[in-house]
């Protein structure tokens, strides 16, 4: 087990280095470059821009820039935002809570609802419920998230007036019920696609577990169907799903990009889009690395969880 962890951990580090190199290179080859926005400013001469580039170290060779940036990153200095000069880490920290709140809620919702639909679909195969779940999943997968977001706002905010159209809290309120009230619609919209994916996989995994010999053994022992489902089927079906949850994490992050923008949610997704618009390179790189770390961590946690749950891995 410690060997396994060490192995996975070193793989993760290598992965992060590769991601950062790709991200850094692609970003710097984008047309215009970080200082292009100043070119439009009539008050800035070419000389001013060159001076600025020298100040920021942007005139050095790319690989030196990368190593300089990476070395500072390791030491905890993620650079400063071009926009207002605040440290990147501080900006991320300000937006972290909002994203984690939204991501966490929608992931939990997706897993809970998706598992229930999947298990029920498997135990009631080819029933009306199963067919509806199949069609529903297909619809949720093929319609883009922003459409659900806009329709949700139209129906539940404009027509029914049940929930606010955006933001994380009402200025001047900020109580827990107020946060939850704002959270309902974006988290439901964000989780919709994931419910669809999760329920399909869960259905397959449950059917697979149901066909195993040990389920027949459990029946021969005289266990009730309910007990067989809870004790023998669900546990074995969830095992491959833990890995899937780890793999799905990046798509929840990118999904948040669109959802956060629609609901003006002050999270990292919206921050990323804004920073791109401003050519705020240190901010964009910081966010890129930060999400890469989250994804790698998610997979690592999933691997560890599988190892903890499955005695075949835990004990060997």
């Amino acid at each position, binding site marked *: 087990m410690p*060997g*396994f962890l*060490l*192995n996975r951990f070193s793989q993760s580090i290598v992965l992060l280095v590769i991601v950062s190199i790709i991200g850094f290179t692609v970003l710097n080859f984008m047309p215009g470059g970080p200082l292009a926005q100043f070119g439009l400013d009539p008050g800035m001469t070419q000389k001013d821009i060159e001076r600025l580039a020298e100040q920021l170290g942007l005139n050095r060779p790319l690989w030196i820039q990368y190593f300089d940036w990476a070395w500072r990153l390791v030491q905890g200095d993620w650079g400063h935002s071009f926009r207002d000069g605040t440290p990147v880490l501080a900006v991320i920290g300000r937006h972290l809570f909002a994203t984690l709140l939204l991501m966490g809620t929608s992931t939990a919702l997706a897993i809970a609802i998706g598992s229930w639909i999947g298990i029920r679909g498997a135990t009631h195969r080819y029933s009306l419920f199963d067919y509806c779940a199949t069609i529903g999943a297909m619809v949720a997968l093929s319609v883009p998230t922003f459409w659900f977001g806009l329709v949700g706002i139209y129906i539940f905010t404009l027509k029914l007036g049940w929930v606010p159209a955006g933001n994380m809290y009402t200025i001047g309120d900020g109580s827990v019920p107020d946060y939850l009230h704002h959270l309902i619609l974006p988290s439901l919209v964000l989780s919709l696609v994931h419910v669809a994916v999760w329920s399909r996989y869960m259905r397959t995994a449950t059917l697979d577990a149901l066909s*195993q*010999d*040990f389920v*027949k*053994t*459990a*029946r*021969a*022992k*005289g*266990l*009730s169907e309910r*007990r067989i489902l809870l*004790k*023998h089927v669900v*546990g*074995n079906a969830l*095992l491959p799903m833990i890995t899937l949850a780890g793999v799905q994490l990046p798509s929840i992050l990118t999904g948040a990009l669109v959802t956060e923008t629609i609901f003006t949610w002050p999270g990292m997704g919206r921050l990323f889009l804004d920073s791109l618009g401003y050519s705020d390179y240190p901010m964009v790189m910081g966010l890129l690395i930060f999400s890469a770390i989250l994804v790698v961590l998610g997979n690592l946690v999933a691997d560890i969880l599988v190892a903890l*749950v*499955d*005695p*075949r891995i835990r*004990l*060997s």
Partner: protein
Amino acid sequence: MASASQAVASEDVALSVRDLTVSLPAGMERAHAVENVSFDLKRGQILCIIGESGSGKSVTANAIMGLLPKAIRVTSGSIDLNGTNIVAISPDKLRNLRGRVVSMIFQDPLSALNPLMTVGAQIEEVMAAHDVGTAKSRRSRAIDLLVEVGLPDPQLMYHQYPFRLSGGQRQRVMIAMALALEPAILIADEPTTALDVTTQAQILKLIRDIQRRKGMSVMFITHDFGVVAEIADSVVVMEKGHCVEQGSAEQVLKSPSHLYTRRLIAAVPHLTGKDRNPLEAADRASILKVECLVKTYRSGSALFRTQRIVTAVNGVSFDLTQGRTLGVVGESGSGKSSLGRLLIKLMESDGGSILFEGRDVAGLTEAEFRPLRPKIQMIFQDPFASLNPRSTVGQILTVGPVAHGVPHREAGERARELLSHVGLDSGAFERYPHEFSGGQRQRVGIARALMFKPKLLIADEAVSALDVSIQAQILKLLDQIQRETGVSMIFITHDLRVASQICDEIAVMHRGQIIERGPPSQIFLDPKSAYTRELVAAIPGEQPRGARALAGVNEHRRDTAKNEERS
């Protein structure tokens, strides 16, 4: 038959099946899985239900347990269990009987236990499901049961997960679980088929002992007459959903009345104890000479010191004369399949040499070895998985030779020729594998191997997946092919009885090494090593001759043994 046993007093009968008919969904190859089957399981007896695949024996067992899939249902007849007709009762009442009055153990102990629950928890679950005892009493009962089925260190075993246990140990756990509530009836569905022969002997003995001690009634389903001879009090023979013969074990085994039973018993391979009559090859040259062959498997990472090294083949040496068959016999994990894969270079060896026609092929690269590939061909175990379901038989047969430069037409002609040679009609060329039975597919597999006119055939458990009657036909075909073409063969099997049918010489493998080599007569009648003796003694239904062999017999008595067996 049904009316004859109607009069039996119900106190003597634990389970009575009358005119049981189980229908199959429309569109299957026959309308009924089981039709008008009647038999009695007497108290304190072991009843063997024997039949080949598709005979309906497992369906009968599942009907008694109420475990039939939804699409298959009992359409008529009754199953009388302690005075209750369980065909008519509610699912809840049936569930209450399962595990308490009737228990069942299954064929594959590797998949029959939940991998995520400890052995102890799974045994306790039976008692908990029927509200028997307290948590504490259930725990002590579970440990008692582990002792009863002969598992070592029961306190430790209680906390163990199934993956840590061997196949035989898991089957013992299954038995412990089945015995937890002292059921009147135990249904065993091929419980030893997936086990090694020595383990099979132990499990058979365990079931017999427990049955005697508790006076339990056992319904034992099997396809192996050797097992029947070993364990049965009475026998029901099934064929295609019908019960064709029943009676006491002695009566059915010694003087079978039905033609099918006779054919089935005749097809059972026995230890011949007689050496094969090899063809008179003018050329007695060695075709294959293997020296000190080694293969080790490594897993995990050397970097973090989690590496595990298993030596699968450990210094194996033998030679094979042209036109002869060498049997490689061993239990699971003995390295016999690894050896086969090394010889055909499906994987690289870690040491030693393989001299094929005098040339060492062990060190050759894939490109260098490729021209030799046609000369060494393999016949695989699973006739279902080894043929591509999307290719016609013709494509399967010709794709290899065509890849080696034979023109399409010529390959096609040879394929048709070989198909009729292995006993398939020429129409088979255009058909797909799923249209054939297991035995026919194995014939296709043999024809495929012969397409190249190989010098050496490696048959890895080539008949293990087949019913005995089919097995006998395939063995005969292989024998015939060898006599006609003079091909040399390496026949890898776990079944000593099969090996004795076809091999000129047998090598017994154990833990990666060949521990004994010799003609069948020596291996079976006068084994030199303790392990071979154990292996021979464990063969079901062959004990008397095995025991005599242990005592050391003279030539004359060997002959009488052979005569007995022929009769």
